[in-house]
């Protein structure tokens, strides 16, 4: 780790650059989530198109992270916490790339929802987007600080996003039943909500990797909400 310093200084440099690159990806993904939902509520198709465009940068960075990780492992053969950290950076980069895709997916639906003025359940989406993007934000902070406690906290917060998803799901269902003319727009909103819910799940995945990289142990199992598939006790 950078704090202790390695005999081979270059390893610290490489690792630092790698982590900075993952953070940069994270920053782009965060901005993409916020931007996509803002474009949606403002019905701003141009802003949405820009977000779709910017996703390419996240993909490029992911490829670059992968290339560097392979080179780092080949050249420096890191062990123990160094190896965990390198692997975590690689996996987190993959997770962030997925998060970026979900944001892009939301942005792509903006032009399809140009005339959805006055869909009442839409009011829940910004709250849900906010909860999801705060999870991403905090998990990236935990990554930058190598903070297992912060990562644990993020994984617990996933419940909040799931609850909002359930709430929005019911609201949209009612809305569709009231007026079949709303089904098209509502289905798009439902997919958007699902994307946000998946973003929350991916943030949790990243949190688990950060916890593992920092402690060398798997994150303790957290209590889950009501599971329809759980065997009856």
């Amino acid at each position: 780790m950078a704090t202790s310093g390695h005999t081979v200084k270059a390893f610290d440099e490489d690792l630092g650059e790698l982590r900075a690159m993952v953070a940069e990806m994270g920053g782009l993904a965060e901005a993409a989530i916020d931007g996509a939902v803002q474009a949606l509520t403002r019905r701003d198709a141009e802003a949405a198109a820009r977000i779709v465009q910017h996703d390419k940068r996240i993909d490029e960075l992911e490829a670059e992270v992968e290339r560097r990780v392979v080179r780092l492992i080949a050249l420096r053969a890191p062990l123990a916490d160094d190896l965990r950290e390198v692997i975590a950076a690689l996996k987190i980069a993959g997770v962030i790339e997925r998060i970026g895709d979900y944001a892009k997916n939301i942005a792509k639906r903006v032009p399809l929802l140009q005339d959805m003025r006055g869909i009442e359940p839409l009011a829940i989406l910004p709250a849900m987007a906010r909860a999801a993007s705060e999870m991403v934000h905090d998990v990236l902070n935990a990554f930058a600080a190598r903070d297992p406690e912060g990562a644990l906290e993020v994984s617990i917060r996933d419940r909040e996003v799931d609850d909002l998803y359930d709430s929005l799901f019911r609201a949209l269902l009612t809305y569709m039943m009231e007026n079949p003319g709303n089904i098209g727009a509502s289905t798009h909103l439902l997919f958007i909500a699902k994307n946000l819910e998946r973003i929350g799940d991916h943030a949790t995945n990243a949190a688990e990797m950060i916890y593992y990289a920092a402690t060398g142990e798997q994150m303790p199992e957290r209590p889950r909400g009501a599971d329809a598939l759980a065997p009856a006790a």
Partner: protein
Amino acid sequence: MALPRFTRLGSGPIAESKPAPPDPTGPLIEAIAEPLLVLDGYHISHANQAARALLGEHIVGDYVRLALRHPAAAPLLSGDEDGPIALNGLGGHDRLWELSAGTIAPGKRLLRLTDRSAQRAADQMRVDFVANASHELRTPLASLIGFIETLEDANGPEDADTRLRFLSIMDGEARRMQRLIDDLMSLSRIEADRYFPPKDRIDLAPVLREVADEFATRRDGQRLALGNIGLGKAVVIGDRGQLHQLIHNIISNAFKYGREGSPVVATLKVAKGFARLSVADEGDGIAPEHLPRLTERFFRADPGRSRAIGGTGLGLAIVKHIVERHKGRLDIASTLGVGTTVMVELPLTPS
């Protein structure tokens, strides 16, 4: 990484005899209240207390991109620009910062962050107000205009009965608008103070009693039961007026949604460094899918019912903002058909 405290650059054989003067950068930026970072290349060589509080204690020695990952900051961090650049969501979702850079020496730069959150909150308030309030105000206004037109058109000056009945409805609608505007104004005051923490020491027990007295004279059989409260225990740093409003809103909600004749129970306890106020009613409860949205402005679990009992849709939004300003926690638990418990935890003053 251990930080070099002395700069050894350019120290030749002659300078070797007397030690290089201590680098003043650390103490210098530490004395400045706004977040400052000193960059050596792309590494953070110094960060003052405010910057470490905002970006994390670990940032000194890290790559600056790790600490400031915002994409808008990229051209500034790579040295292509000096800013200022607006950074959204740093240190909190609603916060706005302005980042600017200046060169100290070749390869060394100073980054400065300026807090623009208050300005941003004011702008956001304006947008929200126009969007929501205009809609909420239009309903009673439409009804007022309707009655005024009817009074003008029909019946002539003799029909005093109709006139009185209409006037009483108009009075009700006008008062509803007034309540709404009062609530909106207090909400905007609380929001404007959001980032200025309160300073007074407030004992919650007398405030709770004071609010309880306001609810003492109710005719519909509902009554307020107060748990045991010791004076001088639940002392928090707060704003007395706002805490009064907080307790008032929670208890008034409990009365509104509690069943007729059922008690409302308010208890104040002290535990683990927090003062915990809980208010429980026995009513229909709130469906779980509505719980996450209760503190949204103008959100109503049951719009018809809320309007009928004079709700503005802002009560819990005000509560949430007051709790946030006092760095507390708000929790609402509800069981359908049983009732709702609202719990507020506020940090006690360190004695």
